[in-house]
């Protein structure tokens, strides 16, 4: 993964293909979401797919903040032989998730939420990877490809 630029204030520079953020506050969640939207537009995702990846990013960034106690996010444009897409990686060194099946089942929340963020994000994207263990933190990677 190549991180082209590291910044924290005004969103994505016009020529950037990737962005990295600290997630320590609600304002940071908004920044990550804005970067995701800009990169999704640049990757020419449809309006529906833009909305889907932005919503997933919003959910996962908030989980990093609330459940993970803060962490980092990387959003980037990715390419393979056939397609262009947007990938986002969220990392924290929080408590981790003990029962991933339950956390992904939908409707389970330890924080008074709807418990739909994690499971919903999985349905919103094309590829979803959850790497977590109790005491080892959490890493979620999602990718949405342009159709």
């Amino acid at each position: 993964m190549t991180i082209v630029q590291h910044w924290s204030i005004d969103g994505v520079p016009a020529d950037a293909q990737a962005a990295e953020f600290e997630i320590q506050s609600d304002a940071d969640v908004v920044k990550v979401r804005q970067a995701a939207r800009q990169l999704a537009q640049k990757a020419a995702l449809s309006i529906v797919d833009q909305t889907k990846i932005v919503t997933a990013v919003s959910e996962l960034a908030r989980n990093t903040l609330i459940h993970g106690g803060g962490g980092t996010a990387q959003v980037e444009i990715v390419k393979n032989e056939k397609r262009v897409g947007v990938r986002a990686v969220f990392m924290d060194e929080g408590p981790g998730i003990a029962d991933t099946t339950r956390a992904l089942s939908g409707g389970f929340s330890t924080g008074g939420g709807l418990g739909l963020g994690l499971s919903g994000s999985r349905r919103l994207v094309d590829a979803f990877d959850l790497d977590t263990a109790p005491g080892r933190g959490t890493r979620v990677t999602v990718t949405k490809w342009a159709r």
Partner: protein
Amino acid sequence: MKTLADGGYDISAFFLDHRDVIARDWTQRVAKNSTGRISAAETQSELLPILDALLKIVGEWPNVSGAPFEEVRALLSEYSRSRARNGFSPAETATAVFALRDAVLSEANKNPQGPGYTGIERFSQMIDSLGLITFDAYVRTRETIITSQTEQLLELSTPVVKLWNGILAVPLVGTLDSARTQVVMEALLQMLVSTESQHAIIDITGVPAVDTQVAQHLLKTVMAARLMGAECVISGIRPQIAQTIVALGVEFGDIVTKASLADALQLTLQRSGFEVRKSERKA
């Protein structure tokens, strides 16, 4: 510089002895840089108290964080606040402090045959620190201004409008976070009471994305309105939002949703017992 070689004349003593001419020079330098935005008289009335407060405590230089400097710090903060409010840049604001150094040193340099000066280092150090204090106070003022503007924007951006007798509408635009929801909810509940309305339409056409948090906020608002005996309809659900909500698995339960504000209005009118039809009379 030859004139500033070691000698017996401390720069603070020189400053005291030449207070009037330095004061004039300083205010002129500062006024020149603030043309139009602030009058020369105003500049003078802001700067001279600072200068005199500094001269009262020459023995304390350059320890600006000490208690004797309290008055100077307070005056400088007040000066920064007024500059920040008048649209000066932080650099312009701090430059005024540095201009005092220029005023003092240029006056001292006018007399090359005179005694050398001491204490220039301490004086210069003090000016630097005072500049930083100014800068700090400036930034804090700007932050306060921004916070209060954000709050004002929040309120402005969540108008509750009366569409019809007994029917309110809340057109939401932008991101719906917790603070915003709180404002929307309060404004809506307030208006429900004051207008004795039984119906409200929450239009989310202008909301870019609905995630679980936004959904939860919407649900809460609807529930709160219900507790007050009013029914809400959520309108402006665009196709991409509808698909996202379905994928997330959010359920709006028995809350009625409509694609457009027009549909929602029609439904609400019906529910309130109004009948909307085209007049048969030719116009």
